[in-house]
């Protein structure tokens, strides 16, 4: 291409520079049709996306669970709160999913910052390095000797107005009827837009890291079988969302956004979230807010509770007793 060819290819009759009208009547009509059509299609796309209400989850009777986990454990007065919450869980699971409303209550007055919930969660979900669902934030106030520590476990808030959901470009994350925000690992493209949208930093990306990568280099067969990439515990799949997620060969959830899901896979079989059962101070409570007799309903109605960053308007489902 040379400017000489530009000189030769000039066609003054077709350019506006010739002194003719900017656009002929026919071109004006075509321009209006193209611009109007494009804007109409774009508008329809946005409106359709914003008004689509159905979630991909099944609802109704097929979601009712007749769980027998506590059939042989009679209820007692002043029984451990874990048993009380598990009874609440069994009761809630006997309802269709759309009639449950899962919430978590964390009593910060009891939390001692032991991080047991963080690690139990890592073990439960086979989380790789750099992925964490429930860190415990430690804040220090005052000056020596008048120092105070405050511990704030931070699971996913399962917001009722989740900012992470609408930013997903492929509908890979959504709000379930029971209030939990779920991710479809098989759809997620790993763009990480949802990570930036969460004001709580509750989503982390699985970059494919491994706790044992390189550990077995130079080791003998015995050592490698215990500590190496083939260590038996590494072969255990994660069971998030009720599916076995084998690790390796760039399989999902590697490359995906990940976050706390209130241990949905455990709820389905009558088990409380791992963070609740592992809390040494019984500071984490879980249950159905739609049940007026549940422990969590009792706690949020009888105590001074707060949510994190309420000014963000996300309407979290995790309450903190302060």
């Amino acid at each position, binding site marked *: 291409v040379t400017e000489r060819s530009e000189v030769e290819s000039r066609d003054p009759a077709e350019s506006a520079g010739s002194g003719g009208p900017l656009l002929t009547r026919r071109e004006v009509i075509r321009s209006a049709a193209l611009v109007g059509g494009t*804007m109409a299609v774009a508008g329809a796309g946005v409106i359709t996306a914003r008004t689509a209400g159905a979630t991909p989850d099944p609802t109704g009777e097929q979601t009712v669970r007749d769980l027998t986990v506590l059939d042989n454990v009679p209820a007692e007065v002043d029984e451990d709160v874990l048993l009380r919450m598990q009874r609440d869980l069994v009761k809630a699971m006997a309802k269709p999913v759309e009639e449950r409303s899962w919430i978590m209550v964390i009593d910060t007055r009891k939390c001692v910052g032991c991080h047991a919930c963080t690690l139990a969660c890592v073990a439960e979900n086979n989380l790789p390095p750099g992925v964490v669902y429930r860190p415990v934030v430690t804040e220090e106030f005052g000056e020596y000797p008048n120092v105070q520590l405050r511990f704030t476990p931070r699971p996913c808030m399962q917001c009722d107005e989740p900012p992470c959901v609408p930013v997903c470009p492929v509908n890979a994350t959504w709000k379930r009827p029971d209030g939990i925000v779920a991710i479809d690992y098989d759809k997620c*493209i*790993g763009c*990480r837009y949802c990570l930036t949208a969460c004001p709580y930093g509750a989503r982390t990306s699985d970059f494919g890291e491994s706790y044992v990568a390189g550990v077995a280099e130079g080791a003998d067969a015995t050592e490698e079988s215990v500590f190496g990439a083939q260590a038996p515990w590494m072969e255990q799949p994660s069971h998030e969302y009720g599916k076995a997620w084998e690790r390796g060969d760039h399989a999902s959830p590697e490359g995906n956004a990940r976050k706390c899901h209130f241990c949905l896979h455990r709820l389905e079989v009558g088990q409380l979230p791992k963070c609740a059962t592992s809390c040494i101070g019984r500071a984490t409570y879980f249950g159905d807010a739609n049940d007026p007799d549940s422990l969590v309903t009792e706690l949020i109605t009888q105590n001074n509770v707060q949510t994190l960053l309420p000014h*963000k308007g996300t309407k979290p489902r995790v309450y903190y007793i302060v």
Partner: protein
Amino acid sequence: VSVVAPERPSVADEPPVASYAPWRRALWGVFAVSLVLGLVGVWLRLVEGHLPAGYGSYVPWGLWIAVYFHGVGIAAGALAVAAIGYLLGWRGFVTRQSLRIATIVVAASVAPALLSVGLDLGRMERAWRIIVAPSFTSMMAFNTWTYLALLALCAGIWWLSYRPDRGWLKPLLVLAMLLIVMVPSQSGAFFGVVDAKPYWHSALLPILLFVSAMTAGAAVLLLVRALVADTGGDAGRRESYPALRILRTVVLVGIALYFVLEFAEFSIGLWNPQAGAPELDLVLTGPYWWVFWIVHVLLGGVVPFALLLLRSPRAWVVAGGLVGVTFVSSRLNVLIPGQAVGELRGLQEAFVHPRLDYVYNATAMEYLVALFAVALGMAIVYIGLRLSSMIEQRLSNEGDER
């Protein structure tokens, strides 16, 4: 509506000019180095995945996303000037060849941009889902569709530019104007809608990114037009001179406007009596202060502005190249500081890992892949111009035979 172009002086009225870019052969060296190093980066990315990358979960987007938004901005800006110039009959823009050069610049900037963002995806093999199952509540899906529409539109403009006019070329250019406004503005909206990041959550951001896109796009078009003009000898240079002057003006005004808008944005944060602005502190005095003061202000503002004020087209070309490269810093200075300040105090210390850190340093792999994006863009410009020349030659020969 009727617009009459100003009286056009003859080509001979323009002063004869020496080569616009006597250093242009050095671009082969830049291309070769970028290609070789870039291929190493792409190979690393494909073999090692995201492990050698510096971004994490608290700063999820890094250099590649800045390159992505810079690329689509250049595309919009270059096409904007060419399309407006063609429609209004600006001197130097009235030929179809000038449109073709702009469409080549669009392809050469959007393709590397999409490559950059594709390599940034955790599951890039699923990128097609944005096309077949998009959610238009997400600005990302909206953006992707608009970019692809822009590419398709440019392909249409390219094709029509070789054919007898049947009244579709200008309507397509009018439609292009809509997309040209949408593409960079949406880039700003992409960040602006994120309420979780106060630094991004500003209505001015789409306008800032629009202005930076027009500036960088005009700058890159100035560079490419000058390189093309040089291949046409004195006649080519004289013919292109009016176009370069217009592009010079656009870049000059763009630089000035961008810095005025940026000052407006910064001043709100800096003079706010209620709260500090940690993101601005990072930009102005943080570890990467030099990206703002040296790359952005000095090399992207002061130096090119001064060069453009000179009467030498050679200086304008250098300024175009500078702005085309350094304006990526305007993207970086939006992107990184916005993520580097968390809403929850103490989160970084709650679970310690390099991926859970608010400090981001681009790694060698990220720089190498960015170099590959540059090489890809240069290759597309070269191949596009050669292809364009071949088609013109063939059409010319066919015309002679008839």
